[in-house]
């Protein structure tokens, strides 16, 4: 059994269950997923930032919406930061393996 950490992560993501061979599809898909997530997180952070600016301008129509979008941005950001940390850990584990 080849322990391929990238494939293990990719297998749990619903949109990547393609049913084809792992090595061909999983690695570029994971990169795509990560890129998508970074873009999505960026959008969420910008949206939250817009909400805060509008709040400062006195447009208080939906205070709870501003809070919710702030929280969504924070969670999304935390997700990709943790994914990055885990990837780094895995890489360091690999590097530490004596040949």
């Amino acid at each position, binding site marked *: 059994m080849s322990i391929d950490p990238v494939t293990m992560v990719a297998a749990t993501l619903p949109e990547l269950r393609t049913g084809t061979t792992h090595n061909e599809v999983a690695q570029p898909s994971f990169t795509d997923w990560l890129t998508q997530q970074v873009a999505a997180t960026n959008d969420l952070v910008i949206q939250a930032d817009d909400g805060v600016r509008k709040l400062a301008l006195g447009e*208080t*129509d939906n*205070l*709870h919406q501003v*809070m*919710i979008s*702030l*929280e969504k941005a*924070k969670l999304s950001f935390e997700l990709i930061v943790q994914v990055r940390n885990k990837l780094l850990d895995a890489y360091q584990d690999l590097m530490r393996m004596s040949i």
Partner: protein
Amino acid sequence: MNMFAAFDISAAGMNLERTRLDVAAVNLANANTTQGPDGQVFKPLRVVAHPNAAYTFDMMLNGMQRLATGSATAFSVVVEPDDAPPRLVYEPGHPDANEKGFVAYPNISPVSEMVKLIGITRAYEANVRAMNIAKSMALKALEIGGDR
């Protein structure tokens, strides 16, 4: 709905209750007077309040209205005298008695004015409570996402 509108609405309600309180107090104070400076018996006052036509419930729900308290008001309040005939009391020696010996007093029932005061107090408290709750809700919304 605009967070600020909730406070303005309750403030308008409280204002209305204040006006009604003043009117009830004036009525009570004048309950035993006879003639005013113009020779007329004091006419009991009444508050008539209408919601402003421009300020409808739909607009409130769509968040389109931000009331500036004091300028665009939620109610148009009119204080008008009541045309009820005066109460005649037989007091022959009174300086204001008419030729038959009756003195005209305003047609004010202190009991009903006091009952109105109770209603006014409760309405005022209700408005204050609504405002406090609006504030709590807004502050609770700030707690979305926990303490971090």
